[in-house]
């Protein structure tokens, strides 16, 4: 009997793939940021501010952060699904995780928009 669980993973390929695509994008950003920091060597406020002031760095950083929040959602949901069995508790934890990540997303938008 293939009984679907309401707090399951929606049995799709999408989240699994999405987690890996965001991982690759974040890995590229990590290397990019390291390269920018090594070239510009910011030593004071203006230098540090300058690192994130160009439009492409803002776009890249915001994209990285939004990827991070989606990636973390899939990862945390996997953790809850592996270790927390009661449906009600798991649902609360999943909702809490979503609220946490959406709030982080709002903050990221506030910083870079």
């Amino acid at each position, binding site marked *: 009997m293939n009984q679907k669980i309401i707090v399951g993973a929606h049995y799709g390929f999408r989240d699994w793939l999405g987690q890996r695509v965001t*991982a690759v994008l974040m890995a590229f950003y990590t290397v990019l940021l390291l390269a920018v920091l090594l070239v510009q060597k910011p030593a004071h406020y203006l230098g540090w*501010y300058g690192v994130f002031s160009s439009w492409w760095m803002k776009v890249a950083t915001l994209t990285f952060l939004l990827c*991070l929040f989606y990636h*973390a959602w899939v*990862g945390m949901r996997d*953790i809850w699904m592996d270790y927390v069995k009661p449906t009600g508790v798991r649902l609360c934890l999943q909702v809490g995780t979503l609220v946490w*990540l959406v709030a*982080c997303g709002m903050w990221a938008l*506030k*910083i870079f928009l």
Partner: protein
Amino acid sequence: MSSTLTKAPIRPRPKHLDLTKIRLPLPGWVSIMHRVSGAALFVSLPGLLWLLDKSLSTEIGYDWLRGFFTLWWVKLAMFGLLWGYLHHFCAGIRYLFLDMHIGVDLPAARMSAAAVYFISIPLALLAGWRLFV
């Protein structure tokens, strides 16, 4: 007909669910540390966003953070998070290759698990050296 469907005798299988008795192989350590580091980074997200926001918003905030980063427990926390990020990064790249069915056989998987530590720990120590020295 039913006589051909004789069941194999049920033998008790060894179960070592006592965590103190399980000897986790190296790929297992990479795996659980991937989880733990990911969860730790998830919990730390608001703190890290706060650092980013404060450091970019005003020069006063930036200078205040420079002082904040001289505190030993802040350095220790940052070192822990950097190590977590580096481990998650290296182990994650290993998983991407495993997903593409590259290095799936046991010797290769053990080798790449060791490589995760050989790369992430020196990088973390380098980051720690930059933080503390």
